[in-house]
């Protein structure tokens, strides 16, 4: 269960170095291409959903529009606001971009995940995984990167030396820090099942048939759907995408934290945002839907890993666009209530339930008694929480009433 990339088990020589270099280039190029695709896809699909044409000038179906926009960004004048903190203003876009890239390095992209192959492929006589890196702390690296990404948004808003970006970045920081908790708590359920933090092991655990030979052995089902739903909601909030895009609420904040940014610096934020969308989808696929693992039909077995991965990824990219096209934006207090009073308690309760079932399975206790007791404890905790929330709401109402009489 604790297997490192076999590439580094031997001596570290030129061939290994070249393989690692090739992997870096491929992962980088793949992410950039998928981002180019995602920007076009979002604009086109959103246009379809709102009965517009969308980009249709550059290339067939407007597919080269993103490239044209990128070139335009390069040649625009780069403005540096007078009251900006120069050094940090320049640094901030990179602080957004680098974590977005780093997360993609731990995502398994392919490989045959059977008991004998273990997702290992042979390149130039060397055995390795089809992922850039498989650190033993894979999932924590993802969480660490998402917590570092806060800095880009926060410092961009602060260093602009202007009101609206600062307000936007304060909102964004509060939102991202709050939803990180729910994100981390829902990941724990997956980690408990896999017994490992490595993303490769996660995919390995989910490979093969489960539950009557029809359903896949995905964590989505094995953890009981709830952590998946919480992860998707918290992930959307972490990305600052609609319906959680208060960070750049145009009506209130002009453009949010990147109001003062222009030219290529703005393009970097834009790139990071879409890159985060792609990587978040990839993380969801890896943690809950078995990543590149899936049945193979015809042709070489190796071909099916990337196909499964890409099709699962596409599903979530579609979902993110769909959410943006259909859902109205949350109000700020609703956003905070959802994060702290709904998602975090539910994920905590679910984690305790899964943990107690896990222990019960190991110790050979009666599963139904343990589940019943856990549900009872959860119910008591829920009643206490509901009581506390109701009391505070009543007090606040009373205070407001007294205030209005005065």
């Amino acid at each position, binding site marked *: 269960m*604790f297997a490192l990339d076999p590439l580094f088990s031997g001596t*570290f*020589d*030129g061939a290994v*170095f070249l393989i690692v270099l090739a992997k870096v280039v491929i992962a980088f190029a793949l992410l950039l291409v998928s981002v180019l695709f995602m920007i076009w896809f979002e604009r086109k699909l959103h246009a379809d959903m709102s009965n517009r044409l969308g980009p249709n000038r550059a290339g067939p179906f407007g597919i080269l529009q993103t490239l044209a926009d990128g070139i335009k960004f390069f040649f625009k004048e780069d403005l540096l606001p007078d009251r900006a*903190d120069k*050094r*940090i203003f320049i640094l901030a876009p990179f602080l957004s971009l680098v974590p977005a890239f780093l997360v993609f390095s731990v995502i398994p992209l392919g490989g045959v995940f059977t008991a004998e192959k273990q997702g290992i492929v042979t390149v130039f006589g060397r055995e390795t995984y089809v992922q850039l890196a498989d*650190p*033993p*702390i894979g999932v*924590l*690296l993802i*969480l*660490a990167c998402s*917590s*570092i990404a*806060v*800095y880009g948004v*926060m*410092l961009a808003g*602060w260093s602009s030396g202007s009101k609206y970006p*600062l307000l936007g*970045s*304060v909102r964004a*920081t*509060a939102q991202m*820090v709050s939803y*990180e908790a729910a994100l981390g708590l829902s990941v724990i359920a997956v980690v408990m099942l896999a017994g*490992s*933090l490595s993303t490769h092991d996660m995919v390995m655990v989910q490979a093969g048939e489960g539950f009557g030979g029809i359903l896949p052995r995905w964590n989505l089902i094995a953890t009981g759907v709830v952590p998946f739903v919480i992860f998707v909601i918290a992930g959307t909030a972490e990305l600052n995408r609609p319906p959680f895009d208060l960070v750049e609420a145009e009506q209130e904040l002009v453009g949010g934290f990147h109001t003062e940014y222009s030219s290529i610096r703005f393009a970097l934020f834009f790139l990071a945002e879409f890159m985060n969308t792609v990587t978040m989808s990839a993380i969801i696929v890896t943690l809950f839907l078995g990543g590149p693992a899936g049945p193979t039909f015809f042709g070489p077995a190796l071909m099916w890993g990337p196909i499964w991965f890409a099709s699962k990824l596409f599903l979530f990219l579609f979902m993110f666009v769909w959410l943006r096209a259909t859902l109205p934006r949350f109000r700020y207090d609703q956003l905070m209530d959802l994060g702290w009073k709904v998602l975090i308690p539910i994920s905590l309760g679910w984690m305790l339930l899964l943990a107690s079932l896990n222990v019960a399975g190991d110790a050979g206790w009666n599963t139904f008694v343990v589940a019943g007791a856990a549900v009872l404890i959860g119910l008591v905790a829920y009643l206490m929480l509901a009581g506390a929330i109701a009391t505070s709401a009543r007090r606040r109402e009373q*205070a407001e009433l007294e205030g209005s009489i*005065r």
Partner: protein
Amino acid sequence: MHFLEGLAPELVVFVLAGLVCIVGALGVVLNANPVHAALSLVATLFGVAVLFLAQEANFLAAVQIIVYAGAIVVLFLFVLMLLGIDRAEDLSVDALGGGQRLAACILGVGILALPLLAFASTGGEATGARPPATAANAITKTTPDIAQLGESLFTTYLFAFEVTSVLLVIAVVGAVVLARKVKRADYVEDPLTSPPSEVPT
């Protein structure tokens, strides 16, 4: 790689990460702008995380980034921004008075002397040396460090762990009590925050 032979990678990592730590620490002390100082602190935390990684304490490195860089310094910055004390301070106006300068120097030298003494007492073996491996503390390649850490937290150090969690709960309760608005009959409102009509004339 041929050009890497003869050059211990551990030493290179240690020197680079140590340099980042020291430069960051100096930045915290010397920067007049609090936001720049907080960012230098992040650099130091990253350096320490790399040092943890070099010692194969993967979990500690990740937690260092998530908790310290990702949460605590973010809160520092958050408070700096909200309170609007994010402009550089002119230290020549509000200089340290009394024996503060002297006390700071003595304390600094004392703190520096501690690790130097420890370094000297082990005969220069301050980095990279692990305690002799026994069955209890052996770092093996077969069990991940997070499993070993969890096991010792929930067996050997269970009491300390639980007491720490109680301490955190007390801190949370204390913060809530401090932040709470008290409504009492004999409560005198702050004239600065209450409407002007209520200020006794």
